[in-house]
């Protein structure tokens, strides 16, 4: 999913912050957040509004359109 997400990152530059978090256990902060958000399977996408409220979450490979729909719903 990395190329797709990187493409979206450029597209939404300055408007949306993109975070790619490795949850293989090497990044404790990422693992802690994943636990807090109930992440069990990857890829897992979390959409957070500007107030920090989690709007929605989705699991599994997605198309650009599906990811964009989730991001656009935040703005």
């Amino acid at each position: 999913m990395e190329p797709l997400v990187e493409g979206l990152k450029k597209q939404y530059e300055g408007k949306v912050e993109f975070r790619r978090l490795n949850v293989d256990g090497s990044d404790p902060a990422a693992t802690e957040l994943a636990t807090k958000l109930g992440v069990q399977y990857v890829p897992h996408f979390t959409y957070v509004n500007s107030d920090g409220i989690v709007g929605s979450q989705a699991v599994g490979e997605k198309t650009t359109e599906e990811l964009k729909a989730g991001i656009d719903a935040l703005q």
Partner: protein
Amino acid sequence: MKPKHVVWIAVAAVAAIVLFALLRPTGGGGIVTVDSAGVDKAREAGAQIIDVREPAEFQMGRIPGAVNVPVGTIETAAKNWDRNATYVVYCATGARSQTAVDAMKAMGFTNIKHFSQGIQAYTGQVDSSEQTSQQPTVQTDGKPVFIEFYTPT
């Protein structure tokens, strides 16, 4: 060895096989249908709740702890999931979740609890996107945040 002994050994072997088949641990698995109480029980036991409705429906309200995997994406999404873990699958009325359960069954999943009545029959408190105070929060810099959790392949 006397023929009589051979017969008894054969009988004992068959009995042992039958007993093993009857008593072997199954992990409470299989593909079963559950009601609302069954969903809560499974969730408390650590089952993953899968909502196979579309994202807009999911946003409006879902069973607490559910993750959204629209039915059209279930085969792709479930590719790397643990085949032996327990999953509760539901949609609005049971039609889409049946499709998802069939797909997961074909993929080799062994412990699926199908909430066939759908979320409309869920008697617990539904987690709604309007109940923002109950939702987890993430630190932001005043901008919306998109997070992808991944593991290196």
